[in-house]
């Protein structure tokens, strides 16, 4: 009988009673066949692989990671709290050393949810990895954390949450944004002025298969991780690079996914997208679990797998190699971005579209250029649905001047903002203030 070399806790939560809509890819059926495969394989009979239920993310858990406007309840249903709670359970298992690794196989996903949230983007409301990372730092102190996003879509939400945070290295491998939602994730997107080089984007051409994907992993991701030396490695584990995925154009396989996790050795994996629910997920999820547990995964393959037919062309391989060389160089010598400055603040003005909910957000971010700390951040945001709101973020190393200025901004009742939210990482204060 099989035995895990590395103990693995799996939080399997298929949310069999939740869907965005009856025929949406995010529907009750999504993890049904994965459960069938797990049961038939007897995955949880393997010594060292255990199954756990999710915890439940509270308002405070979510407010450590996000500005939710007008309130947490307006953004989050119970399904989102449980999904984030699944990620928190994974972190708890690993940090309490109950299991060496953990995989939160939960839905709905989260990696398109940005720092500010007005609704659902790309099937995501709250960023379950970010809620988890902030929970880890709240309970176990400041840590260096690497998030490797292996979903086929650019992890634009997670990138946004950690854009200014030099303690979090974010690496996304994804299908080239010129060919797929959300249309971002280019190599020049490499972090804010205080965290330059801590965001890494590796766009891969359509029809990339096992060789090309693993080339990028071994030649870019692993060397960068070795340099960054994180305390924790998190795999934001989308399964939509699979050759049978209905909404992407890649040619990755279950063997490839297993090998990826074998090489990456993530402490925690969190499920993201992946919508080939019959042809891919049962095999990919099994491969990931076995690889994370250090078990033999050599016989895990799709019934219709054909390596020769899926292999990428020499031209595709050449493109991947060129991209990889460029990305690695820009980690070592990050080019100074073209940051706009007004007075002592770095300014970003953006429009963000929430495709699922049809919301258009207008946002102005002001980051103080402070030489004592990472700088106070003020985010003024409004949308097609809601009047202007203000988010005030004090970084973990916040200096007293930024702290004073932040609290002044939070407490100022000018009537300009419908709701103001405080996210004070230094003093661990997370709360709202409403107009009037």
């Amino acid at each position, binding site marked *: 009988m099989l035995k895990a070399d590395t103990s693995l806790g799996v939080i*399997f939560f298929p949310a069999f009673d939740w869907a965005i809509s009856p025929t949406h890819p995010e529907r009750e*059926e999504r993890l049904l066949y994965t459960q069938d495969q797990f*049961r038939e394989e007897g995955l949880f009979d393997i010594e060292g692989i255990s199954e756990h239920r999710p915890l439940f993310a509270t308002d405070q858990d979510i407010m450590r990671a996000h500005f939710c406007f007008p309130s947490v309840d307006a953004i989050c249903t119970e399904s989102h709290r449980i999904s984030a709670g699944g990620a928190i359970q994974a972190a708890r298992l690993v940090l309490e050393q109950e299991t060496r690794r953990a995989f939160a196989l939960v839905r709905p996903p989260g990696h398109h949810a940005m720092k500010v949230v007005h609704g659902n983007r790309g099937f995501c409301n709250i960023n379950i990895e970010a809620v988890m990372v902030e929970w880890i730092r709240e309970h176990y102190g400041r840590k260096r954390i690497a998030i490797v996003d292996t979903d086929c879509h650019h992890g634009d939400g997670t990138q946004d949450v950690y854009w200014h945070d030099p303690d979090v290295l974010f690496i996304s491998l994804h299908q080239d944004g010129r060919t797929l939602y959300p249309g971002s994730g280019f190599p020049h997107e490499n972090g804010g002025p205080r965290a330059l080089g801590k965001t890494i984007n590796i766009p891969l051409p359509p029809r990339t298969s096992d060789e090309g994907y693993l080339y990028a992993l071994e030649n870019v991701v692993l060397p960068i991780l070795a340099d960054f030396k994180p305390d924790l490695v998190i795999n934001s584990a989308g399964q939509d690079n699979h050759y049978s995925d209905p909404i992407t154009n890649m040619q990755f396989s279950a063997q490839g996914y297993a090998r990826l996790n074998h090489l990456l050795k993530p402490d925690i994996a969190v499920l993201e997208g992946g919508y080939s629910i019959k042809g891919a997920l049962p095999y990919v999820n099994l491969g990931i679990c076995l690889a994370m547990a250090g078990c033999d995964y050599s016989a895990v393959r799709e*019934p219709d797998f054909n390596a020769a037919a899926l292999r990428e062309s020499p031209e595709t391989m050449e493109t991947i190699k060129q991209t990889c060389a460029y990305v690695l160089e820009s980690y070592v010598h990050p080019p100074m971005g073209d940051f706009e400055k007004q007075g002592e603040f770095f300014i970003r003005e953006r429009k963000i579209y929430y495709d699922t909910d049809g919301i258009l957000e207008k946002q102005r971010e002001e980051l103080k250029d402070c030489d004592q700390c990472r700088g106070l951040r003020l985010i003024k945001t409004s949308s097609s649905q809601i009047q202007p709101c203000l988010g005030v973020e004090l970084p973990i190393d916040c200096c007293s001047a930024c702290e004073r200025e932040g609290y002044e901004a939070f407490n100022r009742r000018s009537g300009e903002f419908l709701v103001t939210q405080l996210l004070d990482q230094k003093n661990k204060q997370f709360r709202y203030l409403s107009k009037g």
Partner: protein
Amino acid sequence: MRIGIDIGGTHTDGVLIDGTRLIALAKVPTNHDNLLESINQVLHGVLAGQDPVRVRTLNLSTTLTTNAIVTGRIDPVGMLVSGGPGIAPKNYRIGDHFHLVYGSLDHLGTETSALDELDLEEAIAACRAQGVKCFGVASKFSPRNPSHENLMVAALGDQADFVSCGHLVSGQLNFGRRIHTIYYNSAVWRTFRGFSGALSASLKGFDLQAEINILKADGGTMPLARALDAPVQSIFSGPAASVMGILATSPLDEDLLMLDIGGTTSDIALFAAGEPLLEREGIAIEGRPTLVRAIHVESIGIGGDSLIQVEDGEVRTGPQRLGPCMAAGGSAPSLMDALNVLGLAAFGEVQSSREGLTALAAAHQRTPQQLAQEAVDAAVNILAGTIETLIRTVNTKPVYTIHEILEDREITPKKLIVIGGPAAVFRTLLASRLGLTVIVPPLHGVANAIGAALTRTTSHLALTANTAQGRLSVPMLGIFRPIPRGFSLQDAINEAKNLLATDLEQAGVPIVSDDIQITQADTFNMVDGGYTSGKNIRVVAQVRPAVVARLDSDASAIRLAGQP
């Protein structure tokens, strides 16, 4: 009247019960070389002066199959196993005649590669050459599609004395457990058949016309005729019988804990609203998990004879045992000796207990009382810790819906029922440590036989329906048939109840439909290419373990057979 017999490792216990009254009980040593002799002795005891014709039911719990397996006295089994992508099937290897047959089905039951007939022929020929006559056939995902297993059974033809077929064992998915279950079922088939024949002959001598049932590990029974095909279901029925005995003497519908304290180990079971908690998938034997449904019993190495040791200044109790306690002539101080020293018990030679603890205490700079107290505390802590972990585990078991996360009732037992030799001694100790009401029922050490007598037949089935494929599957009954597109969850529930009731009726067990519980009823919208293609329906129905009567608490007039 009902007779319950439990053949245990040391004793064979029997009771005769009339309605809710315990009429007679008997206890004899178990003769492992001749179980029938032990059964006959017990029957002589409980039937003395009674009219055997009035006995309607005889329920028997036996260690026959468990012992055959753990002592290796089993038949060789030819295993024909067909796997597929996933965990490599070689990892499930069991026995000396394990043969892989190429072929595969996927999770929907679709054939993804045909069964290799050459592999199959070679495997059967190899078994034949080695004189193997009992077989087990299993293919991955056979509950979704039995065709590969059926092909293997057909290929065996009349060369096999007995074949266990995977999809008939359980409708639940678990390839490894399916392989283990059919292996053990075929391995003990001949032994059980021999015993059954001899038993029937023997009972005729008593003028008994009762229906005979065999106890299962889930605390219920199966008719003897059914047991002949599924003897593996009789493993580990002893602890289950004790649990049912508790149920027959306890208040209804409460969360309860049961603790059975023995000499070497203690067993802990949990009841949720009066129902014993079952293993999620099945019980393990020889470290191999099976699909045999069973009451979850937590066994820990604390008992009256648990050895007391002092290591690095810390007092430990159990899990080792070096023979009996000193009060019963043993050579090393044990938990029961500590209880004697503290005056909590007065068992056997109390002076021997004192001498033993005094010597050990002196070697570790303690008074005998201090040592005894620390030893008892250590034992109570282990018992309490196990109980607390069990409750926590049950309340945090994996669930798959938001509804269950938000609405699940927490199981919070307020009462602990303690049975076994030193039960009374632990009453106050456990009550104060756990904050529970502790009850020690007067069961005369035959809770197991009482449970056997009063338990009823249990059964279950799993039904799946896929309206996109237009197919209904009830693997355990071998039913795979077409259904209309409009087949609904309610249709599936009705069908499951009907099929379960009909099947039990055919086995001679009439039931009312209220006895059937639906433990799972899910329906999933299946979507292909953006359009709804059908429904995927899963239903599990069961007749749960329960007792047919609760015993009168007044048991003063009971006669212990074999004593004046």
